[in-house]
């Protein structure tokens, strides 16, 4: 059991009022709030030991390098990577996926090859592959979803053959909330010789993730969704793959030796980190990992599960409210819904006037919404600092909205 009252004290923003009402923040799936511990680690760096990292021979630079690289160790052990070399710092999930598309993709995908995605992907796990497929004459294939919002795994065997070189899929849908059986898909991908990239943007912040257990080849996630700052993300890649991949961006830091007409590359992970990195953000992410680890990812997942089950029960009791996606036991802390015929933008706006922050729109998953026959949904998402009382506030506010908008 989480001590949520104590946790909430770590997030000063949660004490805010919005439109004269206490803030109920239900948009952590888009970006989470940050605890004091993360803010303090970042401020401390700027105040005490900020300098550019790597190659500095003076104390400040050594200290900054040490904290930044320590953050990499923390991330590596957080997802149980075999080695720190397997952790590449990027800006976010999107950049991590693009890195794979531009490097591994460009050297391994050719005409007629297939990339298997799913119907529930975020645009950031669709568009990079479209660009690659257009460039290489490859083909995108989509694993469909069922009407209940699960992946239609019965179709997997049909779609997986030797033409498929890459299977890229989310570990948890940011709209349906569905938690995906990653291991099973990875095993099947490997059986046909494809590699597996997992979009961990929604999973890594919310549940234990062990890359060795999952067996995936790549895992992408964002710091800002897991209590860390913006501007820092992670690409985990299996060392053998990263070793033979060409670099992504060229510039300082990623080279060993630069001649006039060619260069040789730095070792992993720096081969993929050109230019001055997001130093303080990296350190902030390290602090976020410490924070989540101390509370415990199992406990966080269990807490979210409990709040979501309660929220789904409350919300589905409202006349005219329809939740998309599977039952609570199969989902993470995300509930997307439609309510009567109220446009999601009106709904989110009206809820904001009650102090409740939810997101409305297609949540960067237009193909999924099209599949669901919807243009947009309203999404409430929960994290370690949310409570069942906040789910009550949401349900009560929705009742009030129904009275105001009437009809």
């Amino acid at each position: 059991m989480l001590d949520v009252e104590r946790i909430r004290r770590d997030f000063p923003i949660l004490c805010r009022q919005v439109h004269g009402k206490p803030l109920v923040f239900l948009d952590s799936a888009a970006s989470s709030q940050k605890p004091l511990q993360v803010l303090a680690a970042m401020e401390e760096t700027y105040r005490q030991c900020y300098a550019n990292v790597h190659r500095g021979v003076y104390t400040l630079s050594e200290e900054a390098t040490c904290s930044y690289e320590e953050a990499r160790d923390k991330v590596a052990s957080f997802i149980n990577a075999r080695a720190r070399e397997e952790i590449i710092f990027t800006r976010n999930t999107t950049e991590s996926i693009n890195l794979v598309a531009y490097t591994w993709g460009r050297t391994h995908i050719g005409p007629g090859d297939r990339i298997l995605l799913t119907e529930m992907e975020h645009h950031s796990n669709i568009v990079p592959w479209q660009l690659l497929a257009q460039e290489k004459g490859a083909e995108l294939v989509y694993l469909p979803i069922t009407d209940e919002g699960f992946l239609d795994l019965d179709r997997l065997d049909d779609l997986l053959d030797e033409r498929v070189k890459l299977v890229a899929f989310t570990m948890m849908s940011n709209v349906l909330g569905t938690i995906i059986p990653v291991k099973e898909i990875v095993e099947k991908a490997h059986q046909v010789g494809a590699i597996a990239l997992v979009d961990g943007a929604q999973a890594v912040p919310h549940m234990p993730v062990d890359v060795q257990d999952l067996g995936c080849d790549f895992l992408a996630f964002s710091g800002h969704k897991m209590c860390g700052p913006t501007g820092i993300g992670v690409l985990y890649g299996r060392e053998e793959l990263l070793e033979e991949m060409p670099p992504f961006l060229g510039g300082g830091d990623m080279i060993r030796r630069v001649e006039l007409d060619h260069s040789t590359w730095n070792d992993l992970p720096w081969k993929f980190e050109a230019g001055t990195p997001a130093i303080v953000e990296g350190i902030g992410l390290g602090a976020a990992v410490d924070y989540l680890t101390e509370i415990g990812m199992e406990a966080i997942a269990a807490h979210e599960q409990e709040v979501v089950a309660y929220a789904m029960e409350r919300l589905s009791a409202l006349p005219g409210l329809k939740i998309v996606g599977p039952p609570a036991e199969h989902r993470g802390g995300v509930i997307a819904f439609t309510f009567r015929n109220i446009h999601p933008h009106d709904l989110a706006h009206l809820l904001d006037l009650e102090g409740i922050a939810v997101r409305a729109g297609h949540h960067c998953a237009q193909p999924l919404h099209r599949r669901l026959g919807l243009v947009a949904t309203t999404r409430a998402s929960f994290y370690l600092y949310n409570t069942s009382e906040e789910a009550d506030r949401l349900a009560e506010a929705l009742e009030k909205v129904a009275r105001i908008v009437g009809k």
Partner: protein
Amino acid sequence: MASSPYRERVLDHYHHPRHRRRLKAPDLIGEKDNPVCGDRVRIELRVDDEGRVLEAAFSGDGCIISMATASMLVEHVYGRSVSELRRLTQEDVLRMLGIDLGPARLHCALLPLEALHSALEASRE
């Protein structure tokens, strides 16, 4: 919700839209949509020889703000001249609505104006 944009007059236009239909033989048609939220507004006008609006109607789908604004706007254009309507600005529309809208919802209120301008643009040809 004293400060709410969803005050009675707006909701009234939403629930009881004025002139929400299609014209039989419109002279001018303008249509705009916003793929992000799925809002879609079509404005149709019938104008006389002097360029005065004889009849106007709107159709489409969308949120309360965009539909209510479309309804108010269509009501406003009746009897006015095309040249006058071409000068209609964002500020005029917001004044018509009479509510405070943050930047996130502004585009909802402006979609009908864009559709109107697009219809009037067609009359130049």
